[in-house]
């Protein structure tokens, strides 16, 4: 994919950090506001996909390449399973909320839930990106 005109490129370059920040905000505030890991992860993935549309696949791969995306997905999955197993080791059951709760209504509250949100945010962002890369890779081959 070749990318788009200079207007689109400039605007998406300017928008990218804000989108990224917004996605991170949604992930981190999962236990306080509507949203959470899945929603924030989708925004994060959308930020990179915007670059992909504007600059072509090379532009996006400069930020996050396919191998990094796959590794990040595994990392997210491992965070989830690890936190689940923490419940078994520290508490009494799989997926138990074992970290201290903190004070209700603050960013660092609700025990394990922010960690879960963080893990799944990474996982969703990387997963959606991997799907896009996989489809684009084969399309690119056909054009050659």
């Amino acid at each position: 994919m070749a990318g788009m005109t200079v207007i689109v490129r400039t605007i998406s370059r300017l928008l990218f950090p804000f989108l990224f920040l917004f996605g991170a905000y949604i992930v981190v505030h999962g236990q306080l506001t509507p949203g959470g890991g899945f929603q924030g992860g989708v925004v994060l993935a959308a930020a990179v996909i915007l670059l992909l549309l504007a600059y072509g696949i090379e532009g996006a791969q400069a930020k996050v390449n396919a191998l990094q995306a796959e590794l990040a997905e595994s990392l997210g999955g491992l965070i989830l399973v690890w936190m689940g197993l923490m419940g078994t080791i520290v508490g009494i059951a799989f997926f138990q909320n074992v970290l201290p709760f903190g004070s209700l209504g603050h960013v660092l509250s609700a025990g394990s839930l922010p960690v879960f949100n963080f893990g799944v945010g990474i996982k969703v962002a990387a997963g959606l990106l991997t799907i896009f890369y996989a489809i684009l890779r084969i399309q690119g081959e056909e054009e050659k």
Partner: protein
Amino acid sequence: MSLNYIIAMLLFTLGIYCLLFKRNIVKMVIGLQVLTNGLHLFLISLGYREGGIAPILAGEMLGRGATAEFAAAAVDPVPQALVLTSIVINVCTMALALSLAIYIYRHYGTLNPFQIRRLRG
């Protein structure tokens, strides 16, 4: 408040109609999405409460620690959680279905399900 239910069920029926009558795989996948979205609307409506607030303890109620008052006013959180799960499942189904549709088009040159029936009998 049964208007929500009626519309949700009509969307569900519309989805089944799409699956049975549309002659394009992409349109069938869209029909599947309409169907599932009808279901999601139905689930969300199940948790509705007249004049209810979002199930998030925030603002003035959080300050007073009024959990009992909050529980009496908020809508049901469980269907919302179920819908979140179901949406992700739906996205995944769609991703895989559209990928298969790309392959179908590559092998058969058409997306009409009535023309790609080489497996018979």
